[in-house]
């Protein structure tokens, strides 16, 4: 059994390492400060910081898709936009 069929590449590996690091980081944060600081944001329902992370990640994915579909192949600007979006989500949602 080898892993060659999974066809790992460095960029995707870094992507997944980032995601897992985020998850572990959230776990540690939750362990240190339990409760997830729930609040009702502009979406009019209660969110915890885990929800906010999910909304930012999913939203970022859609931003990147729209960028690829409408603007062009260079994703660096899309990435910057995603970061801005994530900050907004963590601030207001």
């Amino acid at each position: 059994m080898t892993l060659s069929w999974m066809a790992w590449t460095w960029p995707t590996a870094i992507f997944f390492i980032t995601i897992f690091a985020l998850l572990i980081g959230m776990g540690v944060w939750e362990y240190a400060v339990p409760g997830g600081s729930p609040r009702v944001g502009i979406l009019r329902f209660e969110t915890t910081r885990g929800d906010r992370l999910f909304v930012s990640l999913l939203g970022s994915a859609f931003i990147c898709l729209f960028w690829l579909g409408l603007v062009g192949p260079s994703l660096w600007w899309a990435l910057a936009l995603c970061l801005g979006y994530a900050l907004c989500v963590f601030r207001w949602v």
Partner: protein
Amino acid sequence: MTATTYSGTANNLSRAGIRVATAGSGRRRLKRLVPVAYILFLLLPVYWLVSLSLKSNQEILSSFTLWPQNPTLTNFRVIFNDPAWYETYINSMTYVFLNMVISVTIALPAAYAFSRYRFLGDKHLFFWLLTNRMAPPAVFVLPFFQLYSAFGLIDTHIAVAIAHCLFNVPLAVWILEGFMSGVPKEIDETAYIDGYSFPRFFVKIFMPMIASGIGVAAFFCFMFSWVELLIARTLTVTAAKPIAAAMTRTSSATGLDYGVLAAAGVLTIIPGALVIWFVRNYIAKGFALGRV
């Protein structure tokens, strides 16, 4: 509060209600008609399948008859005499049963944890499990094939059983959690005070209390594993091929053997019908929890 005042008035005046009911009997007859018409609509295609399975191929192709003129069991005999057919039937049963056992067994403790405890990331974990119930099998077909090839599990029953766990385990956890939340927590605490260890309490006291929940969960696992074809077909070649895949072969390769095809279809309906009959009293309850 409102319910009690309503029922108080209602009891006093129930006789008036009976009088009103007789006036609306014509409308009631109309009301009966809707479910009857719907059931007829449901049964008509099934009837056609059964009737085709009882006809010979000449009768199907040469003349159009509403019911079999010379009912014959030849088509069924073909299936029961051909290992290529009846083995697929056994294959389907095997992996569905394996899947049912695996799903319910590992879902039980998890559902207990979700229904009794709060823990780090529990809500997100629950959501993540549910997304797998919603995930389109089409997305998983290709990587599943690669994954199970890498483990040398292609064309085994256990491969299909584990693959079907993808959507059945979350479902079983969801259903069982609903039933378990209905059992008061005091039961657990009393048992611990009485000196029961956790495994003994779980098997001896808790499981009998949620027996109907386990039944409903097993029923839905059976249902979704039994009806799924795309993944089952991708992961099997011959040794574990499901009956449903065998049917696609007949319809494409020979293209003519409608009688046998219909007979195979009838045979796939029977286990489902039997299972429904056994759990008929729990179906409504399972749906009432809204956890499908």
